[in-house]
């Protein structure tokens, strides 16, 4: 009976680890090279398996020797053929050439840093001096034996290929190698020194226990790691043991296809509105002022209709004529209230202004067209309409935004029904049963109300605006029953749910950020 920790480790052993454990045999300490031979693993796989076993403390490092091996670097190979720069310079001077440092740098096959290095070294030894005109002059009798020794060593290394350092008999050569390995600053070194680590490993007591258990189990590293069609086909999987995985490791994430979190949020809202009996309406991004404002009894001089508040279309500037009887009815109701029991806004209505094209500034334009198009009575309608508002784009204003709004038409609808509908929205859309109704103002509704809800995290917040359409709105469009107009502002809630503070992040073009956003279910 194995101790539980041995058993657990045993189950999780990789086949490579199994082979290494078995390769130790009875020997207390084994060199890496020997292990390579016994296990039949190549160096990299052996080192991988040993690494795992070291982490598990099944093996330990018994002994580590580092062998330093010298060979010629690229510069050394060149000097083997052409002499080191110092000796070359001395030879040129010896044959009486007149040379300056600049001459050496040009066309002598020497790199600038080789020139400065060699000239500096020779000057340091007193083997040359620089006379008038920067001309180099050899100083007879200086000791330049070091460079001849270096040249010999380079030749020897070229012939031998490499040499193990550390032998006392070649201590002088080792010194030279060290000197010219490091020296010459950034210049290419003459020699290369490679360190070869030779380790001996031993099994720890845990490793011994594991090795014994592995041997006893007879699993000679032949666990199946991957189930394959072949194994299934011939039934070879029978009697095989499948290696157990460490399923606690966290994998990297994949980026699959998914809906945009804000669109998903709107989808949820859409579903809830449909489930409450609302029918979807759609409209045009571009509207004329008539449907965007006039039909909603917003006077043509209303501040929200100015050049600073609405985007106008450059070309075409206006729509076709407004259909009758709406054109006449709406003009009359603005001018004199005629047909709606009102005194109207009392100003001259400009029918040409009504045809000006604007970017839809409010979703209510869609409702206006629905009312003029023989809506169902009773009827409930909604739209999630992209609207454009004349505002600087900042943390709370996007250039265009989704407005969720709609209408409810029916006999017997009252202010109390309106409040009931709003409370239903609070519960069904925002899951916030605690509500407050505050007086509000919209030019097209009377009475008007703002819906405030107590959000569990945001506290009291405005969720929507609503009201009963004024008779000046409904009657000119041929609607004779009371109509509730409502709009919901869900962006703040959505941003909260998505953990976003800046509305620009809601529509960020950065894919990394979009991928990182979680799928959030509306409250």
């Amino acid at each position, binding site marked *: 009976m194995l101790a539980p920790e041995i058993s657990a480790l045993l189950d999780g052993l990789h086949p490579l680890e199994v082979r290494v454990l078995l390769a130790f045999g009875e020997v207390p300490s084994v060199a890496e090279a020997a292990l390579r031979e016994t296990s039949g693993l190549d160096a990299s796989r052996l080192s991988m398996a040993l690494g795992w076993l070291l982490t598990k403390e099944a093996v330990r490092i018994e002994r580590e020797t580092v062998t330093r091996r010298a060979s010629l670097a690229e510069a050394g190979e060149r000097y083997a053929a052409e002499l080191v720069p110092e000796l070359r310079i001395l030879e040129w001077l010896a044959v009486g050439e007149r040379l300056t440092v600049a001459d050496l740098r040009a066309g002598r096959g020497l790199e600038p840093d080789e020139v400065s290095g060699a000239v500096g070294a020779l000057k340091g030894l007193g083997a040359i001096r620089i006379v008038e005109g920067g001309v180099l002059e050899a100083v007879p009798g200086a000791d330049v034996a070091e460079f001849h020794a270096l040249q010999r060593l380079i030749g020897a290394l070229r012939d031998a290929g490499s040499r193990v350092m550390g032998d006392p008999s070649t201590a002088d050569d080792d010194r030279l190698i060290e000197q010219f390995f490091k020296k010459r600053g950034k210049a290419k070194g003459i020699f290369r020194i490679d360190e070869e680590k030779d380790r001996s490993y031993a099994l720890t007591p845990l490793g011994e226990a594991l090795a014994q258990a592995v041997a006893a189990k007879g699993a000679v590293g032949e666990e199946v790691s991957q189930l394959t069609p072949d194994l299934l086909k011939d039934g070879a999987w029978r009697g095989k043991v499948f290696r157990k995985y460490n399923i606690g490791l966290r994998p990297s994430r994949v980026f699959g296809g998914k*809906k945009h979190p804000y669109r998903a949020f709107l989808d949820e809202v859409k579903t809830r509105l449909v489930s409450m009996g609302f029918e979807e309406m759609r409209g045009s991004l571009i509207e004329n002022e008539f449907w965007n404002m006039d039909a909603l009894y917003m006077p043509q001089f209303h501040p929200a209709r100015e050049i600073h508040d609405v985007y106008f279309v450059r070309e075409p500037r206006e729509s076709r004529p407004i259909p009758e009887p709406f054109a006449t009815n709406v003009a009359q109701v603005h001018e004199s209230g005629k047909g709606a029991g009102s005194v109207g806004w009392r100003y001259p209505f400009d029918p040409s202004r009504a045809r000006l094209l604007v970017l839809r500034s409010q979703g209510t334009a869609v409702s206006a067209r629905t009312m003029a198009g023989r809506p169902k009575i009773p009827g409930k309608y909604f739209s999630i309409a992209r609207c454009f508002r004349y505002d600087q784009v900042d943390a709370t204003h996007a250039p265009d935004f989704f407005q969720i709004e709609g209408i409810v038409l029916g006999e017997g609808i009252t202010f109390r029904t309106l409040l009931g509908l709003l409370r239903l929205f609070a519960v069904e859309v925002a899951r916030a049963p605690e509500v407050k109704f505050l007086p509000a103002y919209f030019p097209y509704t009377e009475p008007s109300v703002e819906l405030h809800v107590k959000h569990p995290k945001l506290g009291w917040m405005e969720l929507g605006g609503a009201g009963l359409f004024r008779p000046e709105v409904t009657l000119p469009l041929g609607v004779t029953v009371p109509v509730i107009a409502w709009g919901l502002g869900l962006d703040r809630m959505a941003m909260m749910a998505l953990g976003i503070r800046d509305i620009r992040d809601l529509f960020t073009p950065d894919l990394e950020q979009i991928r990182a956003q979680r799928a959030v279910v509306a409250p």
Partner: protein
Amino acid sequence: MNGHLRRCQSALRAHVRHVGVRHVEPLPGAQDLLGFRMPTITALKRDFEALVGRSVTLDELEAALPLVKGELKEHVPATDELRIELNDTNRPDLWSVEGIARQIRLAERSPKPLRAAKTPARIDSRIRVTDDLREIRPYIGACIVRGLGVTDALLPQLIQTQEKLAELFGRRRQTVSIGLYPLQKIVFPLTYTTSAPDEASFVPLGVDRAMTLREIVAEHPKGKTYAGILAGCARYPLLVDQRGEILSFPPIINSQVLGAVAVGDDELLVEVTGTELRMVMLAVNIWAANLADRGARIDPVVVEYAWTTPMGRRVATPRDLSRAVSVPSGLVAQVLGDALRPAESKRLLTSYGHRVTVSGSTLKVTPPPYRDDIMHPIDVVEDLAIARGYASFVPEMPSQFTVGSLSALERYADRVRELLAGLGFQEVVSSILTSRHEVWERMGRRGDPEGLVEVDNPMSESFAVLRPTLLASLMRIEAASSKAVYPHKVFEVGEAAVVDPAADPGCRTEVRAGALIAHPTAAFSEIHADLESLAYALGLTYRLEPIPHPTFIEGRAGTIVVGDRALGVIGEVAPQVLETWGIGMPCVLFDFELDPLIGG
């Protein structure tokens, strides 16, 4: 006059267009849910309490503010300042501390609602209006205020009311502008007349030298701000006194000499000019009510026009424009869902400032002179609901049965979104308002765009056209996402718009589907396979017709054709296009319209 107004409006537009994008500032004030600018006023709490007649806690204030559709935004204890946002853009009488306090005071103590004093038979203070103003800025109203005592605290309130009424109610002084003057410097009668721009000069507020009217319009900060109002006018309005001294150049600026109100002034002339007679009258009434609430005596001024206005040739101001409205009790019950006894309705409406008489089941309601917003009995019904308190109404569930549904287009679009997400594409949402540069030049297009819906008055060139397809939106995503792990597969299903004379209202809104793939070996075949899979799942028979297209590599682009309609394009983005976007990765994409696929 109508002709004049239209001219003025188009002049203003032309002016705004002319001065260019960066000068276009939105009106001050926050927007409500539907985009209306709401005035915010600042007041001292102790001033507010003095006007209400008792001390008021912040909680009490917040509880009372629904009466004025107001919201307390801030109270700064150190300065005693309150900031209150007013929701009702049609109740200018509430855009002052006096107006707010008045509405609350009425509800608490039901004093007698204000009615305008009887106009005395003889009024000494006269303003003569010359005929040449008819086409420029025809109307003026005024009142004389005595015993006001302008203090350090009051002066900012006067300026605030002036600003709110002229900027918001008067639409940047276009329809209404206001001047205040220390009375003792003026000699009645006054003349409201005109002058050629170079013929009159005076020292305007804010500078220390005399300027001609033309110089004021061209150089003075206020002149530059409001010049658009007088664009196209050959003569400018001028208010002068009996001696010929200039009081002001309406609607631009007052005289430094006659028109600078200072702390310590006790008697004032309040003057309102404008293009709309009722609005001018209402503004005078609001001033009269506000300053009367502060204990001042209001004396009328008579205006003598050279022509017959809708209110006659001789108009005394302040002038009560109120008109009784009949409100049947049945309407109250029908709208509010609660039947109120007429006596109860009367009590509530009186506490809201109306004068009410009951005859049978009908209420005769006369609004106070500082209000001109009652157009229909329904407006009185709302006042009734506010006076009673919205909390007093028991919400009732709408009981009628309706069947909910999504449009066929929305359902189709949702199906496409599901399929594209299933094919491994990440959904994105981009703004519809974008720049011409992005949808045109950056997509390799040259020349003048056809069918592009361009904004005439953009706030910035970055948001100046509606996207005609989703191509540029997808490219923008890729351009911003070089750090995201590749491969990239993104899609959008969303609206785009093009000019279409056959469509109502002259442009067509399309729902389009677009997808983009970007990675080191992205190629036509890959995006084509996705289009193929999408079309197959949708049961769509399509074909590709090779086209030369400046966005794509030649020979690697095609039109997506269904039946005989070209719905969109597919292709490998040309390297020069990638370069203008700063994209260093091959991109392939498609984009096509969904609308024609519905119900076919």
